[in-house]
């Protein structure tokens, strides 16, 4: 305690709290030994547990599997996904396990932390044929009204950088990741609060559509301004749960 109050004057409140914790803990376990180690009492330090897969800046990492980018996605979107994992609407056992007993205020803080990170986007993917790219571009920008497929841009914004408060951007993402999400919606492995509009859209897409859309999206250079479109700036073509 004495150490804590001596240092308190020059420390921030967060650091003080940690010193308090650390010094009482140390006194109980090994009185007289050297001072216990300290770590910053920050959200960054707490999120080290996530960095191994999602990157130190939430940029996403390609390993054997692809771990998606979290950085810059709208906070409400990220928070909804954390809840979806916690309540098992999304079937990713390791994510459910990680967040199973974390409180809503803490999950909100985690979501806000990643929203405010802006690491650079990956280099756009190349290699798809012109025909595939053309089909992808058409679906993304205009949809296919004949099959009741709305354009991606109708909800995710003209610049495809998302729409506040809860719709994520879809450029700068890995192609495998987007394709995997589409598959997840089609087979019911990924769910959102009803009405689950993305599941409806994904079910209307053929594998060839998904191939084309993901190829075109992954080939787009991210625009310099990646901020999502302002809330209420688009009239959504479908009713979607959890986005308001």
């Amino acid at each position, binding site marked *: 305690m004495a150490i804590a109050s001596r240092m308190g004057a020059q420390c921030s409140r967060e650091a003080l709290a940690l010193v308090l914790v650390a010094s009482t803990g*140390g006194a109980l*376990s090994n009185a007289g030994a050297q001072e216990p180690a300290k770590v910053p009492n920050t959200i960054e330090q707490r999120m080290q547990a996530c960095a191994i897969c999602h990157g130190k800046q939430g940029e996403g990492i390609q390993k054997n599997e692809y771990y998606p980018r979290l950085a810059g996605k709208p906070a409400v979107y990220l928070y909804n996904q954390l809840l979806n994992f*916690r309540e098992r609407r999304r079937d990713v056992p390791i994510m459910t396990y990680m967040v*199973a007993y974390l409180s809503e205020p803490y999950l909100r803080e985690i979501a806000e932390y990643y929203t405010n990170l802006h690491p650079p986007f990956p280099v756009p993917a190349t290699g798809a044929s012109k025909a595939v790219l053309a089909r992808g571009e058409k679906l993304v920008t205009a949809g296919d009204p004949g099959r009741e497929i709305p354009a991606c841009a109708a909800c995710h914004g003209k610049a495809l950088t998302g729409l506040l408060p809860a719709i994520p951007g879809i450029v700068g993402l890995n192609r495998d990741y987007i394709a995997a999400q589409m598959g997840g919606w089609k087979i019911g492995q990924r769910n959102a609060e009803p009405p689950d509009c993305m599941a409806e859209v994904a079910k209307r897409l053929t594998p060839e559509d998904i191939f084309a859309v993901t190829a075109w999206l992954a080939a787009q250079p991210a625009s310099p301004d990646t901020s999502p479109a302002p809330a209420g700036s688009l009239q959504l073509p479908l009713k979607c749960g959890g986005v308001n």
Partner: protein
Amino acid sequence: MKRTVLLAAIILAVVVAAVLVLRREETVAPSPTARSGAGEIGRGEYLALIGDCLACHTVRGGRPYAGGLPMPTPFGTLYTPNITPDKETGIGNYSAEDFRRALHEGIAKDGSYLYPAFPFNNYTRVTREDVDAMYAFFMALPPVRQPNKPHEMRFPYNQRQLLVGWRALYFNAGEYKANPAQSAEWNRGAYLVEGLGHCNACHGNRNMLGAVKDDDVGGGLIPVQNWYAPSLTSNRETGLGDWEVKDIVDLLRTGVSPRGAVFGPMSAVVAHSLQNVTIGDLSAMAVYLKAQAEKGAPSEPLQVRPTEEQTSAMLKAGAAIYEKHCADCHQPDGKGVPRVYPPLANNRSILMPHPINPIRMVLIGGFPPSTEGNPRPFGMPPFAQDLSDQEIASVVTYIRQSWGNSAPSVSPTEVRLGRGVPAD
């Protein structure tokens, strides 16, 4: 004018009541009365929290106490029943006596035997007064219409009448009898640990027929979940004998303590149940558990033992992996950061003969629960995607044999077995 005011007051009261009821349906957090135990319903809610009824009788994302959770057992899968007071699908038709018979005798209202996954061998110790308070609480819950899922037990375990044999062998009915030679606090602890707390459901060693001795908290592998619930008595495992009561209470209330953090299924127990239990009751449990004399060493697990040569190679590789992936948080000297990153030196929860817990911790990492005393827990990354079986065996062996630790080495085969268990 008076009428309008009265009407407005009534409308307001109805709205407030509706909001309260709705909120109660949505949230699984206990109401403030639960802690103080005000009134019979409040006392019943507190007791239901100690019993952690919610944990088994609720599915993820489902309505509290409406059941439906699959409980895989070595004998087939059970689905927990709806215990809200819905008359058709829940226990709305149970009288206080029916409810008592279920808890004390393990017999349903229709006279059928309940499977002992429902720990009536513990609940039989609960006093009549406490059972009645729990009944009052459950009857005051909002009824949820949700039909029970039929169990999927294999033959012959699907023949419930055969449970009569199991009961004759393993079930000792009867309320808790205080031990006059012990303090009131010790007796309260024993009452909670052996009764509602049903600690031995995990921390006891189940035999081939899934039975566990009434006072056995000597440790055991939890079937199917494949976490090893350490002995609460052996000094080789949790070693509670040399813990301060305060540290035990801290661990149970906040999920973290200077001696270590909860993980695996114990996170759920702290999150749903123990963080809401009064310090007085937690201290009583700690006093009782500390007083349990060593009742023989826990059984040695059957396992593949690496040779000395393999072990020394693993120790060398493990040291490098530890430095790269573990030392930033758990510190080069294995002492950790108190209440933030658990110590690994002399942390018995990872030094038990059975190595599954440290293996799975490295595979899937995890966070302790958010609790009032530790609302923003620090976490550990999973390493299953980054490290091979050989690398994980090496680093776990290194941890188990450094800084004065001297637990047996682990083999890559055991890591592979741990990989096969779903994280959730």
